[in-house]
């Protein structure tokens, strides 16, 4: 019998239909992938399952009994736990305090039993072979990837029968992502149901027993995983046939050097980086996570202090803060890692977000010209095909892919022609990914110079003209032509890590 059966599920938010006639069924002991574009209703679906949101219509049966959780506690009582993309951890608490938050083992006096907590934590971490986590470490000191792992531990601490993983691998480096995939198989073998959401087809292929595809809030297909091809899945997801994810790589590089970096240093994370980026080039930056990629991008954008020399279009540049970075024709713009925390004003409109960096351009005698602004906003919305009802729609209500497009638009409106793209496709659906890669190539053809980091290695391999591999805060290798391969990147990234 199925553990979860969902029929005719519907949910509206105001005028927006998030789910209509969604169906889903999954058995205990399987890994069930949930696929769909951003905005297809996957997140709403799992929010309903985990008790964060109540559904309007339709039925959910868990163990054959009606299921209608009033809140997340209710869901947990029925054995359902979710690990969301947006983390729910408290920065001031330690790793173990976060893991057992509100479920702490207690002493007879009702205080927290610290010894028992520590014992439970170590047992949990050992049982599932967690990558190194120190229970007493304060959460704020952890990287995004480590926090994601803590979040997974927190989900497992509730010993759920159904565990929902919402793009849990997207924040993880390759090795940890690998561990998570193994973990999902282990959980399934223990008789649990794992509902797995990912935009990475290879992962789904590797672990899923069955898969369900959502499009526009409805279920369009459910399959045994080994009976459908990737191509079929993508076609179902986006409702049309996608010719190719990666655009053709036509070399558009000129001899002109757009960005030259010499001996760039920053704290212990960047220890002497040298490279040049040419006009019309897409230069990839890869390597294992935490080897200075983030610091490199932030230093170039003026978001962290750095020493060394930076030249833009042949002229020395002093970039003390993002404002200086963005100013002028010799500027440099960043699409940041944290879309919601660094990139977008979620409670402001698409229009306000798009023009934020260049708002002075629309002033005449100190007063804003709304016509001029509206015209440029429309142009950018059309150019990037941002799917928003109107430019006045709040950025936070857009799907992930469209949010990312707004950030691209904001940066393209500046005059900067050197673009830093830090993991621009993270959490973005496959259709929009294709659009972003095409956009990158188009921009390169127009003479933009692009520095591109991705946590998804195949993207570097297929999109970049050259790939720099970082290791211990330096450029360990620059791969070109046929040397660009996942294997080549990994080899350069890892070999000396072992030696160091």
């Amino acid at each position, binding site marked *: 019998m199925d553990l979860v059966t969902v029929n005719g599920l519907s949910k509206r938010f105001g005028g927006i239909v998030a789910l209509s006639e969604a169906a889903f069924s999954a058995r205990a002991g399987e890994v069930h992938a949930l696929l769909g574009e*951003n905005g297809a209703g996957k997140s*709403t679906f799992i929010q309903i399952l985990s008790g964060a949101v109540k559904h309007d219509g339709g039925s959910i049966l868990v163990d054959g009994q009606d299921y209608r959780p009033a809140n997340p506690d209710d869901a947990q009582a029925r054995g359902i736990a979710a690990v969301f993309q947006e983390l729910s951890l408290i920065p001031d608490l330690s790793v173990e305090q976060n893991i057992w938050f509100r479920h702490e083992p207690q002493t007879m006096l009702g205080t927290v039993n610290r010894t028992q907590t520590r014992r439970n934590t170590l047992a949990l971490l050992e049982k599932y072979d967690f990558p190194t986590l120190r229970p007493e470490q304060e959460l704020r000191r952890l990287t995004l990837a480590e926090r994601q792992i803590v979040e997974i531990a927190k989900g497992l601490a509730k010993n759920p029968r159904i565990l929902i993983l919402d793009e849990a691998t997207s924040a993880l480096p390759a090795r940890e992502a690998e561990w998570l995939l193994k973990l999902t198989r282990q959980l399934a073998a223990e008789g649990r149901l794992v509902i797995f959401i990912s935009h990475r087809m290879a992962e789904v292929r590797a672990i899923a027993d069955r898969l369900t595809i959502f499009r526009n809030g409805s279920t369009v297909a459910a399959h045994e995983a080994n009976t459908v091809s990737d191509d079929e899945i993508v076609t179902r997801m986006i409702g049309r046939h996608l010719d190719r994810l990666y655009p053709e790589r036509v070399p558009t590089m000129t001899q002109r050097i757009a960005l030259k970096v010499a001996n760039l240093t920053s704290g212990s994370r960047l220890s002497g980086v040298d490279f040049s980026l040419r006009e019309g080039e897409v230069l990839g930056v890869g390597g294992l996570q935490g080897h200075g990629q983030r610091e490199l991008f932030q230093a170039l954008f003026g978001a962290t202090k750095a020493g060394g020399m930076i030249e833009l279009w042949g002229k020395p540049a002093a970039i003390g803060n993002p404002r200086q970075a963005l100013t002028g024709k010799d500027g440099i713009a960043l699409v940041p890692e944290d879309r919601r925390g660094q990139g977008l004003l979620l409670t402001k409109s698409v229009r306000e977000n798009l023009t934020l960096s260049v708002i002075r351009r629309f002033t005449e005698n100190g007063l804003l010209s709304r016509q001029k602004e509206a015209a440029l906003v429309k142009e950018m919305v059309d150019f990037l095909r941002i799917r928003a009802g109107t430019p006045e729609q709040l950025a936070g209500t857009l799907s992930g892919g469209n949010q990312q497009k707004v950030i691209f638009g904001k940066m393209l409106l500046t005059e900067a022609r050197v673009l830093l793209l830090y993991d621009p496709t993270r959490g973005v659906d496959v259709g929009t990914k294709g659009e972003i890669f095409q956009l990158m190539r188009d921009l390169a053809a127009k003479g933009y110079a692009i520095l591109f980091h991705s946590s998804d290695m195949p993207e570097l391999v297929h999109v970049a003209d050259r790939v720099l591999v970082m290791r211990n805060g330096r450029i360990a290798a620059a791969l070109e032509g046929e040397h660009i391969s996942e294997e080549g990147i990994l080899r350069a990234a890892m070999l000396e890590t072992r030696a160091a």
Partner: protein
Amino acid sequence: MSAFLARNRLIVLAYAGMVVLLLVTAMFSPGFLSVSNMRSTVVLAAFVGIVALGQTFVIIGGGIDLSVPWVLNSAAIVMALLCGGQDLPLIWVMPLLLAGGAFIGLVNGVGVAQFGVPPIIMTLATNVILQGLILVLTGGSPTPSAPALIQFLSVGRIGGFPVVALIWLALTLAATLLLSKAAFGRHLYALGTSATVAEFSGVPTARTTILTYVVSGLTAALAGMLLTGYSGQAYLGMGDAYLFTSIAAVAIGGASILGGSGHYLGTVAGAMVLTILTGLLPALNLSSGALLVVYGAVILITVSIGSETFAGLGGRIRGRRA
């Protein structure tokens, strides 16, 4: 304009509340809607409104200015001392004290923006320091009475309109232009919504923050001088009431106390609401103590309405992401 209203429901609500309150007050106190009474209500509201102008800017930017009471009080007392009841010195005393207010704001702003001092601590400290300085300066003795010219600016009339109300109108126009029609406004809302996003978007965050505190220093000093004209003299503690009312006016006017939203047009309604309340309660035979209770309750209710809509929006945003 309709887009403005749709996006600023809370401001519309504040004006609706003001009208209801006016009608209710008029029911209990029939003379309330008379021209002379409305005139004095607007004058009293103007002082709250002027102090709250700077406070609005600071709060939209994500900060708070607790130094307004003693910036106001200092300007009042120093003006009275320097003028000694004469009109002529006002020519240089007024600009000097406006600059002084701006300077205190600059100190607050630099402390917050450049040195990372939390706004509550920074402005509380300048408030106490000013209080101490004024006590030392006056030794607690009363000051000379206000010059006639400044009395005219606060209680005089031009064509039937109180001068201070006209000053308030001009300031409202200026604030509206800055918030709605200038790049500064966009930068300010962005800053208050997320300082990190603003910084990453190239907004001059430090400069914008500092400017809000400078404006707040300016408006508090101006209000101090005008208020001296209204009361006929400056006295210790005359600014104390304006700490609460300036923040309350902003909150009632629909701004999020966490920054990023609101408008001075809302604050204007907030200042009116607070002032009408002070007129309503005597009509109901309630004491000034009761007034404070009602003040507190009004703030609590309006702010919780505001945060509820905010939470609702958050829910919608989370729900839509898929």
